[in-house]
């Protein structure tokens, strides 16, 4: 067991992972950054250095601004709701309620299914006139709504699907965290005369803080990463009312073939993701740590 050999071993073990990660994460991130300062090469015309021009046109691009705004609304709308619901679900499923397994299944099932499949199914629910939602609402005297066809409802419709799909996923994390809480804490609180709500507010919720943080960051990332339902249900429409950032990148790169502009857009996305990781490692992690 020579010294040299034992020092080389970890590097050899890391090599395949490092090469792949560098090739598909680190180097692309850097080249994206570089490419965002050039134009898109087309046919006979090669790429040309244009400095920050791509970023300037981005600021003047109404679609980009709409995408940014939509994504912010999407995140702010889905994340807190999904987290709140998932916590509620976790608490339900963690209790001794009859039919726990069935409830857990119904909460979790949407998570397992492909987004593309459920989006296609939901597409029908949103169909004006005879879709599920309109059928149900018709019973209460509501008129038919063009859910995906109106700018006011298109994004919220996507958000609803997003919440439905994600809440069960986050529930699992809360469930795991709840099961980590020693039952003797509940007993100690009961002995002291704490009500259920008090116990939840003062003990359970604070103890779940690390989980909440983890879920929060994941939910934020997902809200910028998952666009399958946009592709299927609205294609960003109407009039970009439901265009999300990554969808716009996808469109720009693979529909309009403007890869340089797409690179600049990607940099914005990366900046957003970096901000989330900053939330996790920078600010909140310190506050919620008690271990």
């Amino acid at each position, binding site marked *: 067991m020579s010294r040299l050999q034992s020092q080389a071993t970890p590097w050899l073990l890391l090599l395949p992972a490092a090469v792949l990660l560098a090739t598909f994460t680190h180097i692309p991130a850097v080249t994206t950054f570089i490419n965002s300062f050039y134009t898109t090469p*087309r*046919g*006979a015309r090669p790429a040309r250095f244009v400095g920050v021009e791509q970023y300037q046109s981005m600021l003047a691009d*109404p*679609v980009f601004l709409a995408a940014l705004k939509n994504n912010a609304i999407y995140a702010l709308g889905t994340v807190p709701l999904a987290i709140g619901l998932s916590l509620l679900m976790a608490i339900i499923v963690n209790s001794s309620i009859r039919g726990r397994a069935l409830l857990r299944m119904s909460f979790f099932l949407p998570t397992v299914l492909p987004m593309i499949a459920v989006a296609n199914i939901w597409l029908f629910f949103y*169909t*004006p*006139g*005879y879709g599920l939602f309109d059928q149900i609402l018709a019973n209460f*005297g*509501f*008129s*038919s709504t*063009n859910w*995906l*066809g*109106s*700018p006011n409802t298109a994004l919220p419709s996507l958000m609803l699907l997003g919440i439905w799909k994600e809440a069960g996923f986050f529930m699992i994390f809360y469930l795991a965290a709840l099961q980590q809480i020693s039952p003797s804490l509940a007993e100690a609180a009961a002995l002291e005369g704490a009500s259920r709500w008090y116990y939840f507010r003062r003990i359970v919720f604070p103890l779940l803080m690390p989980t909440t943080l983890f879920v929060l960051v994941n939910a934020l990332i997902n809200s910028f990463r998952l666009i399958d339902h946009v592709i299927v249900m609205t*294609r960003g*429409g*109407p*009039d*970009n*009312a439901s265009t999300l950032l990554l969808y716009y990148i996808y*469109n720009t790169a*693979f*529909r*309009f*073939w*403007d890869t340089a502009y797409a690179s600049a857009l990607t940099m914005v996305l990366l900046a957003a993701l970096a901000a989330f990781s900053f939330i996790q490692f920078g600010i909140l992690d310190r506050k919620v740590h008690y271990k």
Partner: protein
Amino acid sequence: QQVEINFYYPVAIGGPVTQIVEDLISRFEAENPDVKVNPIYSGTYSETISKALAAFRAGQPPELAVMLSVDMYTLVDEGAVAPIERFVETDEDRAWLEGFMPVFMSNSQTADQTWGVPFQRGTTVFFWNKNMFEEAGLDPDVGPQNWEEVVEFAGKLTKRDASGNATTWGMQVPSSLTSYWLLQGYVAQNEGKLFELSGDQTYFDSPEVVEALEYWVSLAHEHKVMKPGVIEWATNPKDFFEGKAAMITTTSGNLTNVKNNAPFPFGVQILPEHKKRGAPTSGGNIFIFEGVDAEKQEAAFRFTKWLTSAEQSAEWSIKTGYIAPREDAWETAAMKTYVEEFPEALVPREQIPFMVPELSTYENQRVARVIDDAIEASLTATKTPAQALADAQAEAERILRNYRN
């Protein structure tokens, strides 16, 4: 030695298209044992060009693909497709190429070369539900003939429940994708035009275009005879079958679909006129790709020629509802029988004299998206048509500026 070629095709209409394509291919292969054609179903038109261009850029293009005729400039700009003239050698070849109707060729030629071969071409036509016409006291055999009549009929046909919510809309025009195409019909009827055939100039903010869009929007907002917001292409025929819409405009490619699925007698006619008759062409051409062996290109050409010859054109038209783009196709026996049994099939053909080429520019996908957005914005009342079109024109200018020199 067998030559293998890949054939991307989209499905843009209802019906068992995949099967029809496969049938045709197996017949071609029987006649040409040295060629093997792999049909690859590639989704919508826009997905098809995405895929095909992606594959081309990756150095593995399909030998041929059915893509929107209007994507010609994009494809030419990329250097992705080969001019058809390169393969035309014999007189027979020349006769075949000249046999296409000129209106379809205007979207297929630029720089004195033909880049795509008209294949699944269509136009928009007008359908109505005869039962509802009768209920509303209209003559079930005559559709509305002009813009005003459309509004009038639709008003009569729109049904509302006690609380005033519409249960049936008088008129429905789809607007979820490539809605510029329907706008183009209105624009043509209004004696205007959307773009220059050179592919580097648009006229989105011209008064004729603005009026046309204002008319369309007025159906929903002023006259309240059309469902507000964006109407899905996919659900439009379904709404018609379900009785949620009494009159619809949709692609002629839906003829067969409507014929098979409408549970009531229906009427079909060319689009109503305004200042004059007018309608856009639409649909896909077959493109032969660069970047593959000459031998394969040649096989692709042979397949293209076979597929668009009179016999096959007629068959394709009969089975799908697309317009056969060649005069000689209409002369075939099969076609003649079909038209006798189903006279409605003649309707798209009637429209040919009034047709204008579909919007086609450089960066066509992007420009189309710009005008589509403007239409959606107007239909959803986020902007006035004039404002939306002015914005769209500015954006189109920005995009196309680079292509003028």
